[in-house]
């Protein structure tokens, strides 16, 4: 299941080399199936901006090569901080956690989904934060994520209850 999902959304060689990275790309894309952005907030493309994680940015750029669309728009990946405000998803990698206050301020009240993979950021303004959890039955780890509903308030994002079902809710 994990490999299949990975193969479906991350054909790039780097994602294949790093299963967790591939899962993060897949999950990031799959979030778009359970979250709806206001139409007036989306331009000609569905923009994902990746800051502080070049590997993630590279892996996500594979999505641009596919015909996958979100709400009728093709996906565009950006790594420029200036594109953060106009993006629909802003992934804040470990290398950009220092910019978090400024990014929060810049994107406040805007329909931007803030995603990170650094522990503790869900309590610091990020809406979804990836983490790894040991599988109880298996020997490996499972990629999980936390959702802080408070950090979604005011952003005009419609989040499916199914996303909350599989997430760990934090406040």
């Amino acid at each position, binding site marked *: *299941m994990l490999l299949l999902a990975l193969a479906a959304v991350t054909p790039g060689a780097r994602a294949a080399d790093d299963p967790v990275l591939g899962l993060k790309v897949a*999950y990031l894309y799959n979030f778009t199936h359970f979250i709806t952005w206001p139409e007036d907030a989306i331009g000609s493309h569905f923009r994902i901006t990746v800051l502080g994680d070049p590997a993630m940015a590279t892996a996500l750029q594979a999505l641009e090569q596919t015909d996958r669309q979100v709400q009728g728009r093709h996906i565009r990946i950006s790594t420029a901080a200036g594109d953060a405000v106009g993006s629909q998803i802003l992934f804040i990698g470990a290398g950009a956690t220092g910019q978090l206050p400024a990014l929060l301020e810049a994107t406040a009240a805007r329909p931007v989904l803030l995603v990170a993979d650094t522990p503790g950021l869900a309590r610091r303004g990020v809406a979804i934060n990836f983490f790894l959890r040991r599988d109880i039955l298996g020997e490996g780890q499972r*990629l999980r994520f936390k959702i802080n509903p408070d950090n979604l308030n005011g952003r005009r994002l419609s989040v499916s209850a*199914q*996303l909350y*079902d*599989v*997430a760990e809710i934090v406040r």
Partner: protein
Amino acid sequence: MARTRSIRTRLLLALLTMTLLTLAVSTLLSAALDLRLMRASALRDLEILAAVVGENCTSALVFDSPDTAARHLATLAAERQVQRAELLDAAGRRFALWQQPAGGPAAGPAVAVRHELHLDGAPLGAIVLQARLGELHRQVLHYLWLSALLALATLVVALLVALRLQRRIAAPLSSLAETARQVSAQQDLSLRMPPHGRVAELDDLIDAFNSMLAGLESREGRIQQQAAALHTANTKLRALAVDLSLLEQSEKARLAEQLHDSPMQKLALALLQLENGLAEPDAEGRQLTDSGLTLLREAIGELRTLQFELSPPVLAQSGLPAALQWLAKRMGERAGLPIAVHLPAAGEGIDLSRTQSVTLFQCARELVYNLVKHAEASRGRIELTWDAARVALEVADDGVGFAHTMDTTAASATPHPGQPAPVSSPAAGGFGLYSIRERVALLDGRLRIHTGPHGTRVSIHLPRDSGAGSTT
């Protein structure tokens, strides 16, 4: 042998059987159809349930959360018919499983539904629900119970309807039977059954019954008329027998008178003269003897004439035409009256029975006798004609006629318009014409008399096939 049942019982049995059969068939068909519909409905519900639960498990499959999937599958515990739920990933491997705890309903047929899950057009997995339709069977059982109650209620209604219907049909039939019994007991064919007015077939039956009575009544009327006619004929025959007896007496009297007036007188005088002549053997005695012998010869001749008149040998030997010629010549010579005889040309033979010949001769003799004795005619005529259907005898004269005109057949006698009633008895018209009429009537013939101051013409017509017997 078929058992005899009343129409009430047959109607009741027929209605109840028909109702029961209808109910049974309709209940079975309805139950089968409902079972099928309910099964289809239960399967559709299961498919909807699988779709809903499966869709809820979409995020669990997408984000690899079997715990979440198991939690969603566990919500099926409220659905008692669902025994097992299994979530499969896109490769067909089990992702999550849930089973109904022990103690749940295990009755009813097992069914399974599978719902495929997709995400963004790509296969994501599937959910398989296995269930038992015991609930469905309970519902069918309830349905059958309700149907049985409905059938019972319908039977009660059918029974009431049957009782009412049998009253409507059986009562008129019983009334019809009672009327038939009354007709038989009272011998009264004028009874009629009033129309029923509500059941057409019963009205047809009653009409047919009444028509039958009317026919019987009409036939009885005809029988009574025929019996009356037979009684009249018997009375007439009895009167005829009396009349014929009187006629016979009259004929005997006339014969006695004729014997007394001439042959007997001559025989007595001849006897006296022969006795006296034989007693005196002289010339005077011889003269008396010769005179007696002459008287004896005359008496013998008169007796022969009388015998011929009664039954001329020529009738038996030469037939009716020759007998009529002999009669005309004999009676004409005696009365000094020319009586012509007209017969068909020689060679046209006639084939009459002895009864016809004798009857026609006796009638002719009677008519000629009347002609000679009463008509005061200067001449007479006898004419005999025949064809294939009939033979006709006519005796006519130019005399003074008599007071009656008669036209009669074997069955009736009809007076001519303006004329007195026909002679119908010896007392009314004498034995002559009465005797002729009766004789002709016995042979189904017809007697017609035309008389007036310038003459009388009496004609007799007999059918050729009347009076079976020997021929002349």
